[in-house]
């Protein structure tokens, strides 16, 4: 525990963050030790930088919902619906070889706006159900997830929408200054959300509401409105993840990324977010995403099946939770 306590002091006396950094380093060392020639190749890290932003954005979206003791299980539905609506839009307006390049760029920009607005609207629906109608977040977002996925299914009829414009796949596959575009988008979104959560009215209010809902009510905080905004922010992040996902795979489908839901919830919790509300940081969640990315890419390089990686993730989560509980008891 000596090393652990040193790290704790190092990382701003934040208990959970210190432990998380330690775990991440251990995972990294373990994976590097098990198959150094494959895991430490730059190519591996480059491919991680393309894959992890989707999951990272979705995890941050879950974390924001958890700040007020809620949860958002509709993020995957929102992400897919956003991609599919944008894809449907492109199919309607863009004719191959006819539309000039500049117009395509404008259409792609419009597609991005459509996707982000979808996320905001979906988040608004969640927020109204949860904040105004007082439906339990689990059930409300489970229900809306069905609706969003169902609408995607109705729009596509089942098969994937393919053939997005090249500018769209640039969002998922491109590079700027040698860095993956998804990674840069994640960075920008993470910094913005971190700022909102720690430096604005909305963020402070959300933490207070999550810490003690009754006290926040008596203190006159506008609880309903703040919770509404938080779900809209979650929806927005989910739709950004949807843009990146459909850009990277150049396709959108109603049942893409369903395994991300569980992983996003696990990462949010591992990242030190308190599922009953009041505590959670973007930094914590980002480190947790990295830890799990190292874990899964390491095991995949060793040719473990994806099912086994799921098993290991679940075990990892329960282990860390048990560890936290054990430490909190002795304190």
């Amino acid at each position, binding site marked *: 525990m000596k090393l652990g306590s040193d790290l704790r002091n190092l990382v701003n006396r934040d208990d959970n963050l210190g432990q998380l950094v330690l775990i991440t380093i251990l995972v990294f060392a373990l994976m590097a030790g098990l198959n150094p020639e494959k895991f430490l190749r730059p190519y591996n890290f480059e491919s991680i930088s393309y894959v992890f932003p989707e999951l990272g954005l979705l995890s941050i979206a879950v974390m924001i919902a958890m700040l007020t003791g809620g949860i958002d299980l509709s993020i995957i539905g929102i992400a897919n619906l956003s991609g599919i609506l944008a894809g449907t839009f492109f199919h309607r307006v863009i004719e191959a070889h006819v539309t000039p390049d500049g117009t395509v760029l404008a259409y792609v920009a419009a597609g991005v706006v459509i996707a982000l607005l979808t996320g905001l609207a979906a988040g608004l629906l969640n927020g109204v159900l949860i904040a105004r109608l*007082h439906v*339990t977040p689990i059930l*409300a977002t489970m*229900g809306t*997830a*069905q609706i969003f996925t169902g609408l995607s299914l109705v729009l596509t*009829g089942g098969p994937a929408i393919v053939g997005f414009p090249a500018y769209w796949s640039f969002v998922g596959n491109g590079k700027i200054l040698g860095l993956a575009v998804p990674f840069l988008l994640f960075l920008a979104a993470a910094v913005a959300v971190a700022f909102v959560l720690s430096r604005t009215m909305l963020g402070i209010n959300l933490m207070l509401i999550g810490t003690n809902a009754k006290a926040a009510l008596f203190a006159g905080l506008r609880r309903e409105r703040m919770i509404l905004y938080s779900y809209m922010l979650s929806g927005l992040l989910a739709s950004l993840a949807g843009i990146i996902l459909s850009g990277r795979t150049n396709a959108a489908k109603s049942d893409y990324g369903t395994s991300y839901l569980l992983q996003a919830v*696990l990462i949010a919790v591992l990242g030190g977010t308190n599922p009953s509300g009041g505590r959670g940081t973007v930094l914590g969640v980002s480190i947790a995403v990295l830890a799990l990315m190292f874990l899964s890419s390491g095991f995949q390089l060793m040719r473990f099946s994806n099912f086994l990686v799921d098993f290991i993730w*679940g075990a990892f989560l329960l282990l860390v*939770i048990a560890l936290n509980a054990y430490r909190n008891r002795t304190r």
Partner: protein
Amino acid sequence: MRIFYRSETVIAAVLLLAMILIGLVNPAFWQLDNLFGLVRSNVVIGIMALGVLMVLISGGIDVSFPAFAVAAMYLTIRAMVALGYEGVLLPFVMATLIGLALGAVNAVFVHYVRVIPLIVTLGTGAMVRGFLLGMVGASQINIDRMPKPLITFARSELVGIQNGDGTHYGLTAMVVLYGALALAVHLVLRHTLVGRSIYALGGDREAARRVGFDLRWTTFFVYGAAGALAGFAGLLHSGMIWLANPRDFAGLELDVIAAVVLGGASIFGGRGSVLGTLFGVFMLVMVNNSLIIMKIDTTWQRVAVGAIVIIATATTAWRDRKRRI
């Protein structure tokens, strides 16, 4: 006239109304073979719902039971195939015990580690599915290799009717099992100490502790029973559809939880009844099955289920509005 204010009465009235409406759109709804088919589709979901009902009343939630059901089913059938076992009783005991043991793991985390049940059951569900598909196998066991006695057992009927053209339909005898389990859960909830302690735990944990209820036993009972019922239902399911698919039951948790909430159980705990749950399950299964005979495109099915979940939960949230904060 308090009976009109009970949620069971309300859901029964809604159910009746929905049946009349569907019958008006397509009178084929009232044909006996369609009704028998509906009852048959109730059995497996209904048995799982009984377990989820107890978890919800205790103030928890369980999303791991479909994974437990599929694990119990697949492991048992693999064992039966490997050993060439020809019985029926022992496999059901095995599947139930597998579910029970996995449910107990949930209880350990919920009671001792004090993690919120959603996170625990998400984690255990993922682990069990990952283990099953990664370590045991991902291939389906088809009718040719399925144990014959199991299929014969699940095919037994209460009533069998021969049509003029030689086709046959009947009411599955599995509905008796479902009824017996429902009665048992009802009696446990209403007339035993552990049943009352489940309501007490969901109503107010601290009060229940001070009154002297054994909360550890209650938690283990609730999650263990949910796992055991899921395991039993899982094996029954594979007997009824004549195959064992290790990827089965994906996404079933939402349907079952929705059915239980539709039946009047409160997600905050402390409220819920077996009768309401039976109605809720019937409602959900009926809507799912009737979209086809109402000539609505099946791609709308998920939208319909989602809308039902939201309407049902918004209604119960309105009913329970005094309990929030």
